[in-house]
């Protein structure tokens, strides 16, 4: 028994990708037998994957960095070149992988009832599994070209799923915009990878990070990588695809889309802090990190402001949440920018200052909270759409009487996303505010004001969807089926748990992730 578990842990990095892929290939065949068997099969596959992820994450948090070389053989030659593709998992990967373990399984459970009436479900579930595999590949890989390949898998699967409601003009155009954006982002990423390859003859992140010398080419590659990944992560002013895609996709898909966006954000973190980390935090380039940090802070503030202000104006439930999600991404960026712009020198080595580190911790924590909070809100929006067949805030009203559980879940999501105590959003935002206050009080003021506005946004939703007089149009509305309630319940309970005991989470998971992010040397040491 112990041997099997050891074997599973040893090979979990490969199995985490291979099992969803195998499941996706088999789903088409199994779909011929019957829908019920297919649904059960997909849930089982996803459950195994999530279980393996948790095993791997647990192993990484206890035993440190893991590498997995595909095809066997030695990790590197002459301890300076990695030949084969390898996965390298440190605290940061593991942290993001937890999100990727939670969101897809919730989405699949949710889809059971939510998608029941539609055709083409074989392909739907296949694509969900592929999207999950792509997202996990992006998160776990230690090879830049491999990252590009998985990015493409994720984008293609997402685009096809965004276009799921074929009869709606908006979903088709959103899918087209999304695929154009992703294709161009991915191609520029590939261009940057080629620049690295031409310079160092290496594709492995750790090897590139070890060799990086910040020449003219490296600076250009940094900018290209930053722009491409920031576009995929939805930073203003490259965010316009996001409300379209989030708002028009089926709610179950949107939940996974949040995960893919965060995977792009993870790629950005990896590029800035690991690949360029060795050079950005050194004496020769004080100007460089500061410039990048200030630029990121400016973008982040613009992101928060535009996201919140646009959200306030929207009259479509899902579009509104999408703009709120953009604002949430701004908070993470704010933390990163703060960390980059405030590092100090100690004994010849550059380290991020204490307040910067705290901000980074808050930002990383906020990634997790954002995924859960926004995901829950989208699931609620989907439930409302399922019950009332309507997403326009102008027409909805008075649903609280008929949909009690959904209302409760919405309130939990509202409190969490706008940072009301005692939900998880408050804990991470508190850390960000307090650390930002030491860096620049003005930023804190903007952040807090926008958070309040975010609360106002969701109060508007709460008022216009759930409160108000009972409309005769929606008198026949019933509570949504059990599988959707279970899916929302899982996320809501995690939110409440983290909200009540933030300390366990911060100490055991967020702090190792933050340390891993700052420690490029140990990431390099994992390979070479």
């Amino acid at each position, binding site marked *: 028994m112990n041997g099997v578990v050891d074997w599973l842990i040893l090979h979990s990095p490969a199995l985490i990708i291979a099992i969803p892929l195998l499941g996706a290939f088999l789903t088409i065949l199994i779909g011929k037998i019957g829908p019920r068997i297919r649904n059960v099969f997909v849930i089982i596959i996803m459950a195994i994957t999530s279980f393996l992820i948790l095993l791997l994450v647990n192993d990484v948090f206890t035993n440190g960095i893991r590498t997995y070389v595909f095809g066997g053989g030695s990790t590197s030659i002459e301890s300076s070149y990695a030949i084969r593709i390898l996965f390298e998992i440190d605290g940061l990967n593991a942290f993001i992988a937890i999100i990727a373990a939670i969101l897809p399984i919730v989405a699949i459970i949710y889809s059971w009832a939510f998608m029941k009436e539609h055709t083409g479900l074989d392909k739907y579930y296949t694509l969900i599994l592929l999207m999950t595999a792509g997202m996990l590949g992006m998160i776990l890989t230690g090879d830049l070209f491999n990252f590009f390949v998985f990015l493409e898998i994720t984008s293609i699967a997402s685009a096809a799923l965004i276009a799921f409601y074929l009869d709606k003009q908006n979903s088709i155009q959103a899918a087209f915009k999304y695929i154009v954006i992703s294709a161009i982002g991915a191609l520029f990423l590939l261009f940057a990878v080629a620049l690295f390859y031409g310079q160092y003859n290496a594709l492995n992140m750790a090897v590139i990070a070890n060799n990086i010398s910040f020449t003219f080419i490296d600076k250009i590659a940094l900018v290209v990588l930053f722009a491409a990944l920031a576009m995929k992560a939805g930073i203003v002013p490259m965010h316009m695809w996001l409300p379209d895609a989030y708002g028009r996709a089926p709610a179950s898909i949107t939940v996974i889309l949040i995960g893919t966006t965060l995977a792009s954000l993870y790629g950005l973190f990896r590029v800035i802090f690991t690949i360029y980390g060795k050079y950005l935090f050194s004496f020769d380039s004080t100007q460089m990190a500061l410039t990048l940090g200030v630029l990121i802070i400016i973008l982040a503030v613009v992101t928060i402001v535009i996201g919140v202000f646009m959200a306030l104006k929207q009259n479509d439930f899902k579009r509104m949440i999408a703009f709120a999600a953009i604002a949430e991404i701004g908070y993470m960026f704010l933390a990163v920018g703060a960390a980059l712009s405030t590092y100090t020198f100690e004994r010849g080595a550059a380290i991020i200052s204490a307040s910067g580190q705290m901000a980074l911790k808050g930002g990383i924590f906020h990634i997790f909270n954002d995924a859960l909070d926004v995901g829950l809100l989208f699931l609620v929006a989907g439930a409302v759409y399922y019950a009332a067949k309507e997403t326009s805030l102008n027409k909805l009203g008075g649903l609280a009487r008929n949909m009690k559980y959904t209302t409760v879940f919405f309130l939990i999501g509202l409190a969490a996303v706008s940072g009301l*105590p005692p939900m998880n959003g408050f804990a991470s935002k508190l850390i960000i505010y307090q650390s930002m206050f030491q860096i620049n009080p003005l930023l804190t003021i903007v952040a807090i004001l926008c958070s309040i506005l975010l609360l106002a946004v969701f109060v508007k939703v709460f008022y216009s969807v759930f409160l108000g007089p009972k409309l005769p149009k929606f008198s026949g509305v019933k509570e949504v089926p059990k599988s959707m309630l279970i899916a929302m319940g899982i996320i809501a309970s995690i939110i409440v748990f983290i909200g009540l005991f933030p300390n366990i989470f911060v100490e055991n998971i967020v702090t190792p992730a933050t340390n891993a992010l700052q420690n490029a040397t140990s990431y390099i040491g994992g390979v070479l």
Partner: protein
Amino acid sequence: MLEWIEPLIKTLTTDSGFWNPLVWGIVFIISYLVIYIVRGMGKKEYKKDTGQTQVFLSGNPEYDKEKMHVPGANVYWGFTEALKWLYNKFDKMHTGNVSDYILWFVLIMGLFLVIMVVI
């Protein structure tokens, strides 16, 4: 005996402050009790099957349900109206044209290239 609970109730410390949901919860429960007592005091005067239960709109009769419904677009009307100049600019930015999305991408890339490489 209660060792397992210790890590749960630890305080989350930030650089200059702390956050403990437990303390917050106790305060919340106390204030809830106070509110409940105050509400109970008012509840005594409430009588069923009288005019008290009806909606009071300055003495006018209650409107139709459909008419009472305030659509979402009207909720922050004053706010959006006051900041119309800002919203006009934002609306101009969100054209919805794919080419513009890519143009923004090129713009940001060019800007960053100039700032990062030249400076």
